[in-house]
């Protein structure tokens, strides 16, 4: 596979100005693009910094000392910002941080990125309506964005990131304000996204395992594990860093293993291991 189809990081380190230590140290990994990658780890492990790096916010918008090389498929996040930012969609940890402060209504807020691209009013209108329908914000289109509930604001933040049809999506803890029903809807939607490179950080291990193609585990700024969810949890215990999904706990305690000896970590694998697969 040529480099344009790979996500690669080579000895990447990031230090914020004035900080004593690196926030990220010597990250090195190569993995195919167009997959969903979950990022896990304790707080302060560098997850948000990694998200910022992958999206180009560091070093283009936020200053930091970056070493090493990295690219996302065909995209080089350090390239001309004006050209590449439309291809990257980023959802902040706190959705209120994403508001432009220049929009009276939810519709204008969603249209913001497209206005910046100079698109026509009719094209913008069509796109905004389509996304509003998808994220159940149609009734809120004329509302002031600051008056939305936490869950609605998170959906708005996601819609705003998607409006330019980006190739790369980065979600920093996207469901923290949502209730369980909203959360499962989000991850179900995520699982249906193809031909995009997606990074998701979350503390919801079960949802991540069911949704992502691979996991990156960070601790204290270093990449301590990477691979499919199944591989990661079937390795010797990392229970101090991240809890295992319920599926894994159940299966390992009941002895329900998959044919290759691994214990399942997703619902589908659980069905397979217990002979319930359809």
């Amino acid at each position, binding site marked *: 596979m040529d480099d344009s189809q790979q996500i690669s990081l080579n000895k990447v380190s990031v230090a914020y100005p004035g900080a004593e230590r690196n926030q990220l140290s010597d990250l090195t990994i190569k993995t195919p693009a167009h997959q969903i990658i979950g990022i896990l*780890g*304790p*707080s*302060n492990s560098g997850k*948000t910094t990694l998200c910022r790096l992958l999206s180009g916010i560091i070093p283009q918008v936020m200053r930091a000392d970056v070493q090493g090389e990295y690219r996302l498929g065909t995209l080089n996040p350090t390239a001309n910002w004006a050209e590449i930012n439309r291809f990257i969609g980023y959802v902040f*940890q706190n959705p209120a941080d994403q508001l432009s402060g220049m929009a009276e209504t939810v519709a204008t807020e969603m249209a913001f990125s497209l206005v910046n691209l100079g698109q026509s009013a009719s094209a913008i209108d069509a796109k905004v309506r389509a996304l509003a329908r998808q994220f159940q914000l149609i009734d809120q289109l004329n509302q002031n964005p600051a008056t939305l*509930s*936490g*869950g609605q604001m998170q959906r708005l933040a996601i819609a705003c990131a998607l409006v330019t049809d980006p190739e790369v999506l980065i979600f920093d*803890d996207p469901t*923290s*304000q*949502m*209730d*369980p*029903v*909203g959360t*499962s809807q989000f991850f179900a939607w995520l699982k249906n996204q193809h031909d995009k490179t997606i990074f998701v950080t979350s*503390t919801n291990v*079960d949802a991540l395992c069911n949704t992502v193609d691979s996991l990156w585990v960070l601790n204290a700024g270093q990449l301590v594990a990477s691979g499919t969810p199944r591989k990661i949890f079937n390795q010797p215990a990392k229970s*101090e*860093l*991240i*809890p295992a999904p*319920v*599926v894994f*706990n*159940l299966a390992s*305690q*009941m002895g329900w293993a998959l044919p290759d000896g691994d214990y399942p970590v997703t*619902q589908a694998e*659980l*069905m397979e291991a*217990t002979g*319930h697969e359809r």
Partner: protein
Amino acid sequence: MSVEINQLHFTYQNSNFGLQIPALSLDKGLTAIVGQNGAGKSTFFKLLMGLLPLQDGNISINGKGSHELTGRARLTEIGILFQNPDDQLFNATVKKEVTWSARQITRDRAQVDQIVESALTKVELLDKADENPFDLSLSDRKLLAFATLLATNPQTYLMDEPMIALDWHSQTIVLHILKQLADEGRQIIVSTHDMDLVAHSFPRVITFDHGAMVFDGTPTALFGSPAILAQAGLLPPRIMQLCALLGDTNVYLTTEDYVSKHQA
């Protein structure tokens, strides 16, 4: 040590939303409040804290009317942890933040220092005492907010979604402290979306739906009532969801619960 609520009615101006609780008595120990976003959990907490005016009915906290309590007297009875720690923090360093709270209940220097050290040690933030709260991660800020609450050590703790934004290690710390407090005889009222948490740690759960209380009982009873879960828009704990996929619709509160019932 109890919170008694009687004929409570509250409606927001400019909105149809109304909270109604005919009667509720909360005793010491751990109680979970569940319900969808907008069902009334936050409103309920704000009323208990006196952050919203009492329109109708009365709330008495350990024998005193909730809206008559002021300042220090209130602090020793009831305290709240907001969902977003940034709504609660406003000092320049971690240590000053906890000191501020400690000084609300005592002016004695030595006592304040001891309270601050104890609280920060419990949440494992002592080594970050001189840092600016804004430089901490969201998880640590939440722990800090919790530490400020520990500093005043009220009889009743109100926790609005305490586990959100905490990383796994911090969640275990907080849960451990809450259980200790409950054992000491304090009253811990937690609002949460996390049904697994409710199932494995709370002996009592109250369910809100559209401003009304629709359930008050044990988690086992709640998760054994699919009708109530559906009405309130709730899902059962993950272990039960998985078992349902496997064709088993019994009530299990934890994985260990299931395993112990199925291993020979």
